[in-house]
């Protein structure tokens, strides 16, 4: 019915339990960062894992979503959920343009074009007055949910972030297990064959791209509200690289992999921050070990050991 296998149901239950219990042990702000990146990585995984499209430009959607949510809540005083949705709409609109330009290209060319277009977005953000250039948009208020519930307390906004993440996670699962998702998988498996069955594959790829960039925009917008800041870091190409890292590390094409990857990478950055540049080096090493030894990623390897799809 739900499209989850029994093992996956257990996985989801476990994940929800952890989300509920974790803030009594760990800092809510750290957890919210993990959840925002987890949603971002899940959105990215929708493309690479289920359509076979490698986007090197996903920071553009995450970062622009973050800027627009931050700017609108700060200057228009709108409510928090509207700001987050505007971030999503920004991601979707930008995804439609960039996707439309990139989707005609295959494989590595697709990846290169997304990277080039995302760089253009980065330079736009660097120059445009509304982003605040190098300073970014600072002192962004968290606003009120539905105009009623103040979100200044970390624990209150935590539940909002948890809800946004879970809603996005479930939406992606539904997309993958929909009639539409079935066609996406066919395209991933054998695009010429899907075409020969009469599917206009570019239309399907473009819609998947827009859905993915919309969710990336929502993740970026949510992050901006949590941290009260939107900066160039979120549109920088290294952010695009980071989401690739998270997804590969956790397990590409698995439903829990991107979440696990986001947790590990964010934790590394947080707890290794004291070692400065070594974070990057450590990440690089882990990335290489992963690519060479654990091709399926953490969750993918566990799934293969237990002979289940996670």
């Amino acid at each position, binding site marked *: *019915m*739900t*499209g989850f296998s029994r093992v996956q149901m257990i996985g989801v239950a476990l994940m929800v339990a952890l989300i509920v219990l974790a803030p009594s042990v760990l800092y809510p702000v750290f957890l919210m960062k993990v959840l925002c990146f987890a949603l971002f990585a899940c959105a990215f995984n929708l493309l690479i894992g289920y359509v076979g499209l490698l986007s090197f430009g996903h920071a553009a959607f995450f970062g622009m979503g973050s800027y627009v949510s931050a700017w609108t809540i700060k200057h228009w005083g709108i409510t928090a959920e509207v700001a987050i949705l505007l971030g999503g709409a920004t991601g979707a609109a930008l995804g439609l343009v960039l996707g439309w330009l990139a989707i005609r290209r295959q494989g590595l060319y697709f990846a290169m074009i997304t990277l080039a277009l995302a760089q253009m977005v980065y330079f736009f953000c660097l120059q445009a007055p509304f982003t605040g250039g190098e300073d970014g948009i600072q002192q962004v208020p968290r606003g009120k949910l539905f105009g009623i519930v103040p979100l200044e307390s970390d624990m209150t906004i935590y539940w909002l972030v948890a809800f946004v993440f879970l809603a996005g996670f479930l939406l992606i699962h*539904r*997309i993958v*297990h*929909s*009639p*539409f*998702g*079935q*066609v996406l*998988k*066919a395209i991933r*498996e*054998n695009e*010429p*064959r*899907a*075409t*020969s*069955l*009469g*599917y*206009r*594959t570019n*239309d*399907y790829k473009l*819609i998947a791209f827009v*859905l993915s960039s919309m969710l990336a925009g929502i993740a970026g917008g949510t992050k901006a509200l949590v941290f009260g800041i939107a900066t160039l870091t979120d549109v920088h190409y290294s952010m695009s690289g980071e989401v690739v890292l998270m997804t590969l590390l956790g397990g590409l094409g698995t439903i829990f992999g991107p979440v696990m990857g986001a947790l590990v990478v964010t934790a590394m950055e947080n707890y290794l921050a004291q070692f400065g540049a070594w974070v990057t080096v450590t990440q690089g090493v882990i990335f290489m070990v992963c690519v060479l030894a654990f091709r399926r990623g953490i969750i993918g390897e566990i799934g293969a050991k237990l002979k289940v799809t996670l």
Partner: protein
Amino acid sequence: MSDIILATSGLTREFGGFVAVNDVALRVERGTIHALIGPNGAGKTTCFNLLTKFLPPTRGRIEFKGRDITRLSPAEVARLGLVRSFQISAVFPHLSAIENVRLALQRSRGASFDFWRSETVLSVYDERARSLLDDVGLSDYVDTQAGLLSYGRKRALEIATTLALEPEMMLLDEPTAGMAHEDVDRVVNLIRRIREGRTILMVEHNLSVVEGLCDTITVLTRGRILAEGDYATVSKNPEVISAYLGSADA
């Protein structure tokens, strides 16, 4: 005249300076099994790619059911009822056999962009998919991942998937290539059963298959039509004989 379902005129495709398909005028009669034979590199697969619009022709015109399809996209050609298979078997390897067939059946829903709906709505196609799998002798492999099937069964699955679209015309590129004897017989019998109400254009190297199955044969060499007619006529043509003797594997 009106019985010609597919006709080309002056069909030409160049790769750089190399002419792979050269001024081909092909006419396929409705309801027949038409073979396209010729040595390796003759341009048969390229012809299929042109007919199904996977490649744009350099010159020439293609008509299907009296309609000019030269400028259509591959998906549109498929929707008109001209459906191809591939020389290298084309299944969706990580999907189960029934999911493979269902993907073709699902096409009849129109554009299935409904990402918000559960895939359980597709279960209405299960019965039809099972019966198609049954038709091609795959009833024991309904839930098997397509990639794990033997080569012969992959081909059978491919045919079941193509049949699910109920195409008026099927293009089969070497449906028996690389198969063991029993598998060849199975596929030949299958083609005999499905020809009812359809037109089939097939590339085939196995001449005994061609002899037993095909009504008309077109021989292609170096991109040009060398001879055309029924098996008896074509097999006696001295040019055909020398073309075939001139190539190691015919």
